[in-house]
Every structure is written in C-alpha cells, then in structure tokens.
C-alpha cells in the first residue's frame, strides 16, 4: 500500500493589501528592452536627421550662388559667371531621348511577360535575368555603351571591318539633312541609348507590377465578348494600367536625372558652353529649327556631370556653384516626385476594383 501523499500545508492567507499590491505592480522592465526599442527608434528617425543635415549643408554652401543668372547661363571658368543652362538643356534632351527608346521596349516586354508568356524555360530565364540586370552597377552599362555606341567595336575605324569590306572609310551618313556620325562617338545619342538600356529593367519590373494590379475579371470580360488577346491588352488592360505605368516612369526619370557615372564613361563633357543642336533659346529655335534634329548627334553635358566637374575644381567658389547645381537638381527631382504622387493619388481614388 502506498503511503498517503502528504497534503501540502495550506499557504498562509495573504493580507489583502499585500495581494492587491502584488497584482497591480508592474513587472520590472529589463534595461535591454528599453535600450533596444530606443535604438530602433533612433535608427529610424536618424534618416530625418541625416536628410536635414544634408539639405542644410547644400543650402548653406549654395548661399548667394543660386540665382536667375545661374539658371540661364552657360558654364564659365569664372565662378561668378558659371551657370547650369547647358546641363538643364542636356538633361531634358537626355530624358526625352531615353524614354522615347525605353518606354516602347519596356512596356512591350512587360506586356509580353504578364499577358502572353507561358511558363517556358526562356520566360523563366528572362525573369531571373531581369532581376540580375537591375543589380548590375551602372558603370558597367557605361562600359557597354562605350564599346557598343561610342566606338561601335571600332568597326568604322581605319582598320575596322566595315572599312575593309567596303573599301571606304565611312565617317558619317546623312539622312534628311541630319549628319549622323558613325560610330556615334561621344554624342547625346550614345548617352541616351546607354541610359535606356540602364533604365529598361526598372521600367519593365514597374510596368509588370502595374499590369498585375489590373484584376483578371477585366480581361475575362473582354475576352468573353469576343475580343482577341491584343485587343484586350490594347483597349482594356493598358488604358487601365496607364496611371500605374506613368507613376513608375516618372519615378524612373528621377533615376535618369541623377545618374552620372555611365554618362561620364560615354563622354558627356564636364565643361560645356553650348546647347545640344546649338538651340539654347527660343530665338535659336526660330533661327535654325533644323538644330532640333541635329541635337542628338552632338556633344552634350548633363546636370550631375557638371556638378561633378565643379566639385573637382580647385577654386573654393566652385563648391558653392556645385551646391547651387545640386539644389537645382533636387528641385527638379522634387517636382517630378510631386507629379508622380499626384497622379497616383488621383487615380487611386478614381479606380476601385
């Protein structure tokens, strides 16, 4: 027979006041917890501090240099005369040319991947390749552009393969009065083509996301009414996806505006006293409108390259000029992002799937 288990002695009754205290007392907070949560807080808010210091530094350095004269003059050896007009024009040209080449290809690729592609090995390969391409350093694109567009593999040089085959040394071809140098050399066209290759993965991925947000029911309805696949894409899916695509394109414009390294590699000049196509004002445009066609095949500069050039100058005043240039650049980015946000908000309210 097992011995009877001992009944534990009853706990002494706790005085009710003591019990009350024990129940309401907060458990001691471990110091590690406080330290950790405040570190997290600090890290997250440090971004605000950094942004303020950064912008503050630029504004402080730019003091007195950012004025109308700075915006509308060409570059100069003398800091008081230097301006960013050539860069502003060059950047505008760059945006225009880059996106006229990149948007059709990028949107086309995204439409194929989202609307047409079956899961074959090649489609899977394209997808994986896209995400890897987005991680290729921009300067490598610069090297690509240097070889493919600026020099065209030296095919047109004196010993190049084209010269040997044709027996003539071709330096340029003329189409409709526009002289196109071969190879492109360090012209705006080389820069814009390089940039469009660089921006292509960004546009494709963003457009894919915009297309994915369109509900399948829209496609099904269109197909059920007898529309073909392309008609469905062309008249239903793409129009519905336009706001999303626009937003992402505007955001990728800001990437193009800020990109510097590949353009230096493909030969954007740091010091430019000319506008692309010699069109620097409305008067120039009226005088020789053909410059608009010639502009892509001339030398150019863009804002960040000008800024880089100023930063490298020995004279102290140029640091102020560089800061003024940065402010113009940031202002432009701010405007673009504002536009993107407005478009996004406007259509988000309108379209509720």
């Amino acid at each position, binding site marked *: 027979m097992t011995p009877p288990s001992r009944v534990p002695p009853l706990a002494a009754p706790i005085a009710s006041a003591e019990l009350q205290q024990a129940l309401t007392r907060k458990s001691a907070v471990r110091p590690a917890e406080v330290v950790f949560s405040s570190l997290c807080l600090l890290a997250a808010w440090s971004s605000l501090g950094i942004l303020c210091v*950064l912008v503050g530094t630029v504004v402080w350095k730019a003091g007195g240099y950012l004025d109308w004269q700075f915006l509308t003059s060409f570059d100069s050896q003398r800091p008081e005369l230097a301006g960013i007009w050539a860069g502003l024009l060059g950047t505008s040209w760059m945006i225009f040319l880059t996106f006229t080449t990149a948007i059709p290809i990028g949107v086309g690729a995204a439409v194929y991947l989202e609307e047409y592609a079956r899961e074959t090995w090649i489609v899977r390969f*394209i997808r994986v390749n896209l995400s890897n391409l987005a991680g290729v350093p921009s300067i490598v694109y610069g090297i690509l552009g240097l070889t493919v567009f600026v020099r065209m593999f030296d095919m047109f040089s004196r010993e190049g393969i084209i010269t040997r085959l044709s027996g003539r040394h071709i330096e340029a071809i003329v189409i409709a009065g526009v002289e196109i140098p071969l190879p492109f050399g360090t012209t705006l066209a080389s820069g814009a083509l390089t940039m469009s290759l660089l921006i292509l993965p960004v546009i494709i991925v963003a457009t894919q996301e915009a297309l994915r947000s369109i509900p399948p029911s829209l496609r099904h309805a269109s197909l059920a009414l007898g529309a073909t696949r392309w008609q469905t894409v062309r008249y239903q899916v793409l129009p519905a996806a336009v706001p999303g695509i626009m937003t992402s394109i505007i955001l990728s414009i800001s990437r193009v505006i800020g990109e510097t390294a590949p353009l230096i590699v493909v030969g954007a000049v740091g010091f430019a006293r000319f506008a692309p196509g010699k069109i620097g004002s409305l008067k120039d445009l009226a005088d020789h409108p053909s410059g608009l066609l010639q502009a892509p095949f001339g030398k150019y500069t863009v804002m*960040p390259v000008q800024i880089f050039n100023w930063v490298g100058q020995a004279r102290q005043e140029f640091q102020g000029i560089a800061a003024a240039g940065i402010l113009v650049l940031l202002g432009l980015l701010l405007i673009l992002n504002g536009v993107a946000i407005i478009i996004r908000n406007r259509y988000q309210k309108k379209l509720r799937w």
Partner: protein
Amino acid sequence: MLRRQFSPSRLRESVVEWVLFCCSSVSIFVTAAILFVLLIETVIPFGGVKPFFGHVSMWEFFTETRWTPTFSEKHFGVLPLVCGTLLVASIGACVGLPLGILSAIYLSEYAKPKTRGIVKPILEILSGMPTVVYGYFALIFVTPYIVQPIFHSLLGLEVDSTNALSAGIVMGVMIMPMVCSLSEDAIRAVPRSLREAGYALGSTKYDVSLKVVVPAALSGIVAAFLLAMARAIGETMLVAIAAGNNPRLTLNPLKSIQTMTTFIVNTTKGDTPSGTIEYQSLYAVALCLFVITFAMNVVSHAVMRRFREVYH
C-alpha cells in the same frame, strides 16, 4: 468542324506576340552584350587584337600589389583597387546595416501607422538622392566636420581630404534605405501566427522581435545585406568624389584610396585611345566588378527565393 483559317486578324495577333517577345528578349541581349564586350577585351582575342590577359597573366593581375596602368613603368595588380572597394563597402555595411535593420524592426514592429507614414517617405527621398549629392556631402561636410575633428584634432592622426572613412560612412547612409525596405519586406512576410504564439507565451515585444521575428526573417535580411553590398561595391560617384584617386593597398580608412569604379570613371574621362593596354585594363577591372556584383546578386536572389518558399 472548326478550321484554322488564315485571317488578317490572326496574322496581326501573332505578329504582335512576336514583336512583344522580341521586346522582352532585349534584356537577354543586354546581358549577353555586357559579357561579350567585357570578354573580347580581356580574355577572347577579337579582330586580331591581343586581349588584356594576353599581356598580363591572371597570376600577376590577382597577386601584384601595385596598380599603375598609366605610368611608364606599368604594373597591373588589381588588389589595391579591390581592397579599396571592399574597405569602403565594409565601412558602409558597418554603418548602413545596423541602421537599416533596426529601422526596419522599428517600422514593422513598433511604429504606429502615422509614424510609418512620415519615416517611409523620408527613406524614399534618401534612396532617390543622386549619388553625386552624397559624394558632395561626404567631401564638404563629413570629412571636415566629423572625421577630421575626431581623428585629427582629437586623436592626432593624419587624415587625407579625401578618405575611405567619410566615403564609407556616407555609403552606409546611402544603402540604409535599401537595407531597410528589403528587410522590412522580409520581416512583414513572417506570418502573424508566429508573433502571436510568442505573445501568448508571455513574451514582450523585445523578445518577439529579436528571438522570433528576426530569426524567422534572417534569410531575407541576409539577401538584403548582399544586395546592399553589391550596390555599395558598384557605386561610383560617391567614391569618385569623396574617397580619392590613389590606388594603394592599405586598410587605413583615413587615407585616400581608389576603388574599381573610380578607376574606370577617371580613366575614361581622360579619353584613353582604344587598343592600348590602359584601355583594356578598364575592361579587366569592369569584368572583375561585374563578376563580383553579379555573383552577389545571384546568391541574394537565390536566398530570397528559398525564404519565400518557406512561408508560402
């Protein structure tokens, strides 16, 4: 019986599909072109021109400790450039990783939606900042007002006006938004049930964040780290402005150094004639850079895929 008949609309459909397919295969051509361009100047003889590694042996390239392609006495040892690149990138990682991961934890575990609504756009602004601006900031603010007072005035060390430390610190600031948003994605992908199980066992927020959520999101965070490092290694303008132009094999972050990207950007600026060995050395360095960053990207995406599979 339905018969496939020729019709203009059917033709149009297939033409359109074909054109769209061509658009999407452009990305493959770009990758192939990058590889082709880098290889013909370095490894594969093309058009009768001796490639870079025909002049310089691989052994010399990876073991020689001097990099002087533009001097009359030429040495092609990529080590100083790789060392400079890794120095800046690792300082950047030391600054950017803790900042990024801690803010990701804050944003996903602690912050109220309103706070998130403020911090998130700030991070987006920082990540969209052109890198020349970061370079300018490192050169004009971080070196003279942070690095020099601490290391020169206080500790009496010699600080170059362009140095790896300032560039590295600002690099950290630059990669922080990227680390933060990628880690936040990873942290948010951790199922709610794991957190709730933790809380139900009586854990505090601290315990749940550090002992449940972060370990569960670890592979996603590692992927974020790799992507950010690849970005730091490939970054050009920041280091070209703030880290100097002086290839040397040193681990002293207060010296001016040269990275792989700085070498490329400064050498092409001088318009080196093609066919020369200086010109080819550009491609050799670019190939090196491409291989390193591409490998990091591939590994990172593989890790991310594995991570997604665990929770979906």
